[in-house]
């Protein structure tokens, strides 16, 4: 295995921990609600899935608990911002702090324990493709799930009535209301599903990738996910590209060092952020931006 291949493999598995929450944030923001509580949803998902997997020994229950943990944070955010008209930024940050505190209290007893992380499943046939095979098709189940999710989200956004309603809610909620839709319900659903994906991203980190729990283990990657959505101009395929780019540059920093390459380490540390920012900013200037017009706007119960 050479260094480049190794970097790409690490980039895809590490990048998935950014991709899943970023996809969730994308759904939420397309409905008009920023969720800075994504970091908190990831923590809740990481701990929920780890605790459930350890106590039940069943990885599927663990994955479900991860989604549920994130969705719970999302529900709280939805209630505060949509139903109560609270400020989206303030609510998101509060929920992040709350999740950090609660997971630290309940997670402490799991610190220092390990479980066997999700094993990689080589897809028959596909994993033998030179280059792409080992990188894309010898990963764990949550990585495969993320491939499908990108496709499903793209399809729902642009090819279905549900997606149209979702996007309309983020742009002109009054139009949705006028046509008999319920913008608030759309937002509540979008935030909850989105934060559920944030929880799944946390699960990919704790039970998928590293196989243990540590307080505040997401180290700010939930905020990276929010930033990726912004710089990806709210478009699913670009979100995928941004998350992988971040993961790949992050992995490259380790691989370069392990090969004894001499590069300024502080630059290496900044590279994932810099590279993602520059590339996505360059692309954002080209095509149109899909900034939802009604982003961060509080809606009344009638949707206006």
């Amino acid at each position, binding site marked *: *295995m050479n*260094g480049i291949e*190794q970097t790409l*493999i*690490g980039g895809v598995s*590490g990048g998935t*921990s950014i991709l899943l929450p970023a996809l969730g944030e994308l759904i939420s923001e397309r409905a008009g609600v920023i969720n800075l509580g994504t970091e908190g949803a990831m923590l809740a998902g990481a701990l929920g899935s780890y605790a459930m997997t350890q106590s039940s020994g069943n990885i599927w229950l663990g994955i479900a608990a991860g989604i549920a943990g994130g969705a719970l944070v999302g529900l709280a955010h939805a209630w*505060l*911002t949509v*139903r*109560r*008209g*609270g*400020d989206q930024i*303030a*609510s998101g940050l*509060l*929920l992040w*702090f*709350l999740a950090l*505190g*609660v997971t*630290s*209290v309940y997670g*402490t*007893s799991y*610190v*220092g*324990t*390990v479980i*066997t*992380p999700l094993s990689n499943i080589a897809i028959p046939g596909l994993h033998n493709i030179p280059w792409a095979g080992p990188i894309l098709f010898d990963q764990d189940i949550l990585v495969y799930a993320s491939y499908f999710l990108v496709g499903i989200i793209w399809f729902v956004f642009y090819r279905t009535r549900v997606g149209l309603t979702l996007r309309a809610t983020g742009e002109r909620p009054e139009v949705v209301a006028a046509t008999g839709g319920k913008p608030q319900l759309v937002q509540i659903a979008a935030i909850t599903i989105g934060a559920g994906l944030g929880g799944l991203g946390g699960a990919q*980190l*704790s039970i998928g*990738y*590293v*196989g*243990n729990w*540590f*307080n505040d*283990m997401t*180290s700010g*990657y939930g905020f990276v996910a929010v930033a990726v959505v912004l710089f990806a101009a709210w478009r699913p395929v670009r979100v995928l590209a941004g998350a992988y780019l971040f993961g790949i540059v*992050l*992995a490259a*920093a*380790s*691989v370069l*060092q*392990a*090969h*004894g390459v*001499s590069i*300024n*380490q*502080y630059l290496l*540390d900044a590279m994932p952020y810099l590279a993602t920012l520059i590339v996505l900013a360059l692309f954002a200037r080209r095509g149109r931006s899909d900034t939802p017009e009604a982003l961060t706007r*509080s809606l*009344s*119960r009638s949707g206006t």
Partner: protein
Amino acid sequence: MPISRNRRVAGVLALALVAAVATACSSSGGSGGSGSSGSSSTAKQTVGFIMVGSNSDYGYNEAVYAASQKLAKDDPSVKVITADNIPENNAVTQTMQSMVDKGAKVIFATSYGYYAYAQKFAAAHPKVIVLHQGGFNTGKFTANFGTYWGQAFEPVSLGGMAAGGLTKTNKLGFVYAFPISQTIANIDAFELGAQSVNPAAKTYLVNTSNWCDPLKQKEAAAALIGEGADVLTQHQDCQATVIQAAKAAGKYVVGYHYDAESLDPSGWLTGSAWDWAPIYEAITKVALDGTFAGSKYNANFVGSFQDNDNPLTLASFGKSVPTSLQSKITAEETALKKPGASVFTGPITCQDGTTLVAAGKTMTYAQINAISCLVKGVVGTLPKS
């Protein structure tokens, strides 16, 4: 005005959330306090311990907490109070003040970043004896201040011997956080230990710029394993990720901070584990006797193998380490305990070929504490600022 009413309700809820967070924090911070042992009988003397992380982090902070509880158990005249999750800012000064208000005569500030606050607090409170764990004072000491630490690199070099003895690829992987001299000394000692049993062994470095970031640790471990390393070790606050990565890949691991053999019985070789209780007990005794001023603890105290008081000890051997190698390592441990012995005994050469220690010479602790060169056999560079 439904919206403004909603806003008000949201404001109230936000306050409720803040209160909930505060409760969560204080309950975790207070768990140490409620764990304080002994009744508040008047004869008891109060000793306080302040920790930067959780008192059950399975690492550095838990070792501090466990030793503080042992002190309370071993010395019935001492009442121990603790506070954990105290950040390295003014909060530590407030914590020290509240401990003094509760009658604390001796305070142990156990995180590296507490140093300036502890020193300042000592100067302002001459009647309280303040100890700092890990700091090194190059200036004058007030009569009520001291630092203490141990020659961490000694057991690390023994771990290096185990790694060097068992590697088949002659590549050892070291995941570290920051290029501080304590870490550089550990990296060098690890490589020197490995070379002593296997001259071909090389140590490969990856840093994470974070004391505990599992995602980066995993990437680092994967990169080192991909490079061919078959033994991993680390200088991180949390070690589960690297152990798990080594276990999943069927590689060996040398631990740091605590004995984690149970996490990976077949991959665990050995490691370094903190045992602070003897130092805490010795310092507390001197401090409460009234003989602290001018004692060896009213200075930069450094425990070592040679003085038989190193707080960092060699952890247990895993079943993969053959008995012949085990006895080689314990023989070296015994040798290091002789007066004048040192891991850093020349000749030792830096990566660039310059001499670190000339033949027959040994480095002083002050020199090791300012070390900046990686020894020959270490692959990788340190970040330049």
